[in-house]
């Protein structure tokens, strides 16, 4: 059975329908990408899954459990974590603190435990610190735990955001343009990193991406959105040759120069 199921999801802003009747099935342990031109409703859809927005219609199920209507923290506890298009770290906290905040839902220490620093609380804190260290190491931030998040270089900030998301032990990880603002080399690194997340940790990945090389390189399944509607779905190869997709990206007039457009890094996001 699919890990995440979306059925007929509709999200409107006033007169604008940002997401229209969207259906989606994400199988466990896949890398699934959502692509589409700017304003196609990709991030809006992310926000519907994670509970930032309430869709007007439709259902979203994680492992058969309905998500619509739940607050964001409950959804995270059910096993969905995300990163943000414009990095949103806790900028003035250290890297390790950021990761440890991600562990928050899995820790139990209460007020009294914190005040008296009970053995249980101390053990938990030590464990949490160790786990946060491991996560930082996994994402490539070994030894940088005490640096302030906002002082990290851009690429490492993206990685730290992933570490924070991983800390909540998600089944499904939503990555919103993880290679935005990166040069081709860095994007390549990120691509390998994403694949490792799936291969080594067994996490299902839902990706929004503009870098076509990344998308085509790592996705097993792709859905293309345009004006809030799904216009195509399938394996990367099918998508690359789909005339509707090419039209959506280039407009009617541009269809002639289709070659090379979808397998090169998209210039215009």
């Amino acid at each position, binding site marked *: 059975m699919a890990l995440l199921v979306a059925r007929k999801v509709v999200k409107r802003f006033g007169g604008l329908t940002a997401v229209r009747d969207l259906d989606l099935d994400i199988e466990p342990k896949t890398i699934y990408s959502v692509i589409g031109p700017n304003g196609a409703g990709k991030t809006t859809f992310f926000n519907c899954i994670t509970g930032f927005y*309430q869709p007007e219609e439709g259902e979203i199920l994680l492992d058969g459990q309905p998500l*619509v209507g739940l607050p964001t923290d409950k959804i995270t506890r059910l096993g969905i974590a995300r990163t943000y298009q414009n990095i949103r770290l806790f900028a003035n906290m250290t890297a390790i603190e950021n990761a440890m905040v991600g562990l928050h839902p899995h820790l139990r220490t209460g007020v009294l435990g914190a005040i008296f620093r009970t053995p249980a609380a101390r053990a938990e804190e030590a464990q949490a610190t160790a786990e946060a260290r491991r996560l930082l190491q996994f994402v490539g931030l070994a030894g940088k735990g005490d640096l302030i998040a906002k002082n990290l270089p851009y690429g490492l900030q993206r990685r730290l955001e992933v570490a924070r998301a991983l800390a909540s032990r998600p089944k499904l990880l939503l990555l919103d343009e993880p290679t935005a603002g990166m040069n081709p080399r860095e994007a390549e690194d990120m691509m390998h990193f994403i694949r490792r997340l799936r291969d080594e940790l067994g996490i299902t990945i839902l990706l929004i991406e503009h870098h076509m090389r990344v998308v085509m390189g790592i996705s097993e399944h792709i859905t293309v959105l345009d004006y809030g509607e799904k216009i195509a779905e399938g394996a990367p190869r099918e998508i690359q040759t789909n005339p509707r997709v090419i039209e959506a990206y280039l407009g009617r007039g541009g269809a002639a120069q289709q070659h090379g457009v979808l397998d090169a890094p998209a210039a215009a996001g």
Partner: protein
Amino acid sequence: MLKTWFRRLSGTDLIMYAIGVTVTIAIIWGSLATLASGKYSLPQWQDLVVFGLAQGSIYALIALGYTLVYGILRMINFAHSEVFMSGPFTAYFVARALDQSGFLERSPVVGMLIVTAASMLTSLVIAILVERVAYRPLRNAPRLVPLITAIGASYALQYVFRGLYGSGVERYPELAIFKGEWFLAGVRVLRTQAVVIVAAIALMAVLYVFVMLSKTGKAMRAVSEDKDAAALMGIDVDRIIATTFAVGGALAGAAGILYVLIFGQVQFYMGFVPGIKAFTAAVLGGIGNVPGAMVGGLFLGVFESVGPSLFLDGLGIPAPYQLKDVIAFAMLVLFLIFRPSGILGERLATKKA
């Protein structure tokens, strides 16, 4: 739809609804009890409403200052109550001088216009000074920072004026032309109340026309939409913001004189309560919304004037009039919680991600 609504409903939401329902029931219950007891006569109610309208129009004028600044900078100008106080407190000395020279007795209208002009000018200058010193350097600071400077500026101003003019209560000279009352369609209106209401409405009309039609007004609206875009269009944003403070200050200065017409006295601490109530009025009408401030002011004025007799009395609360201010604060709190967009405003989409 209903199903998701239920799922979304949390325990805290339930408590909130319970509070809302309780307050509503208490108000209705109290009002019915009072009306059934027939304790107050129709003229008494009319007096309360007229008084509320007069008071409310003063709130509305002050509220415009909050709303204009909020609309343009998205910040609460906490020091606005002191801007309001500075005008009539300073103009008192003008009034006293005119009174001693006998000018105020001879031509009271011109005299009062001079006093009003002095009050408006003082408040205007203070408003611009506050903006220049306390807010402008912090335009890009975290949001709490200008709020804290606003609180600081408010106290600093209060005590500067206390130091300058003393802590005593000063009584404005009383003028014969403002004594007496008129009857309008059988409703008794004190002359002062009529003057206050008419003057306030006239000023609000002038402001509305200014904001909507004048070039500066249009620039103000442009800046409130998008500062950067406005700057690109060649609008001097700093100047427009200063103008906004100036306009709000001048209105507060005028409101100060109207306040004096009703209450007759000035003091360094006089700004706080009208200030916070005017802020309530601005919230009631939807902060940032110019007609909203007017509606909110009048509504609050009438509500707090009629309220104690209407529903607190009916609930059997002793000395209900002492709780007049509690009503205003309760309104503020309830509106901010349940309908932060105000009576006229639309709910703005909360942008999160």
